[in-house]
């Protein structure tokens, strides 16, 4: 019998903890980064008027951006650590699909995005799709 999502020598609780750490850090980082980019405005427009330097300056002078990058870096090292102990076929789909759902919730409550039926349906479809693709 083949086990679809083998955690190898790592226990299921340790695996869940590693994946939860990735999801939590990643969601926080993505929400902070999205909030930063929304406060900055359309980068294409800024670049068209102020050039690439103006666009880079707009991004690097936003404190929210650095907070977001800090959490994304944390998520990255959590991912590296998890990949060292678990298979990519478990870590990538599990963290990607869970992050989609947690981001939809965070987008609604923290970024005040209009997460309507269409977007909830899409989040669930993509979440199940990512699971099946890695099965």
């Amino acid at each position, binding site marked *: 019998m083949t086990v679809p999502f083998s955690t190898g020598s790592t226990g299921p609780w340790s695996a869940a903890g590693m994946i939860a750490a990735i999801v939590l850090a990643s969601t926080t980082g*993505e*929400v902070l980064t*999205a909030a*930063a*980019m*929304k*406060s*900055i*405005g*359309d*980068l*294409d*427009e*800024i670049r068209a008027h*102020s050039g690439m330097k*103006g666009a880079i*300056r*707009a*991004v*690097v*002078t*936003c404190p929210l951006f650095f907070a977001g990058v800090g959490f*994304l870096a944390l998520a990255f*090292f959590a*991912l*590296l*650590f998890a*990949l*060292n*102990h678990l298979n*990519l076929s478990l870590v*990538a789909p599990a963290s*990607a699909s869970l*992050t*989609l759902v947690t*981001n*939809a919730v*965070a*987008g609604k409550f923290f*970024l*005040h*995005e*209009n*997460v*309507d039926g*269409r*977007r909830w*349906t*899409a*989040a*669930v*479809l*993509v979440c*199940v*799709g*990512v*699971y*099946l*693709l890695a*099965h």
Partner: protein
Amino acid sequence: MAHSKLTARQYSILGLVALCAPLGDTCLSRGMTQVPAISLSHPASLITAVFTPWIAAGIALLIGFFASYLTALSWADLTFVLPATAFGNVIVALLSKFWLHEPISLERWAGIVLITVGVGFVAHGPSLTERPAASPESAGGSEALHEMEEERVR
């Protein structure tokens, strides 16, 4: 404020977001399986792992992903951009089928269909549903936008 029409350039940026992320993850996975097991008591070995070729290539691809991702977030919602990121899994699966001739099971085809339908659902809706007014002191981007306004007035 809602924008539903994306330009060809904006679609290409979403394409880069979708492609760079899974390719970068694959490089990282290959690199991390080649280094010895890393324990929590020696976290510094994670830093040395960053300089191995596969992990460096993965990081380069992920930097490309991040630049496109930031650009996309500046004109689209997070809940619009993220499903586009997941579409990268479909691209990788199709590449493995038609380029590497790897078999794809029925379940994987079902996954591909679900992700494609999910991304299609979001793509047909508005890309931006809410943009709170930026406070003048909140971000450097506001200064750039002020400069743009002044240029227009002149």
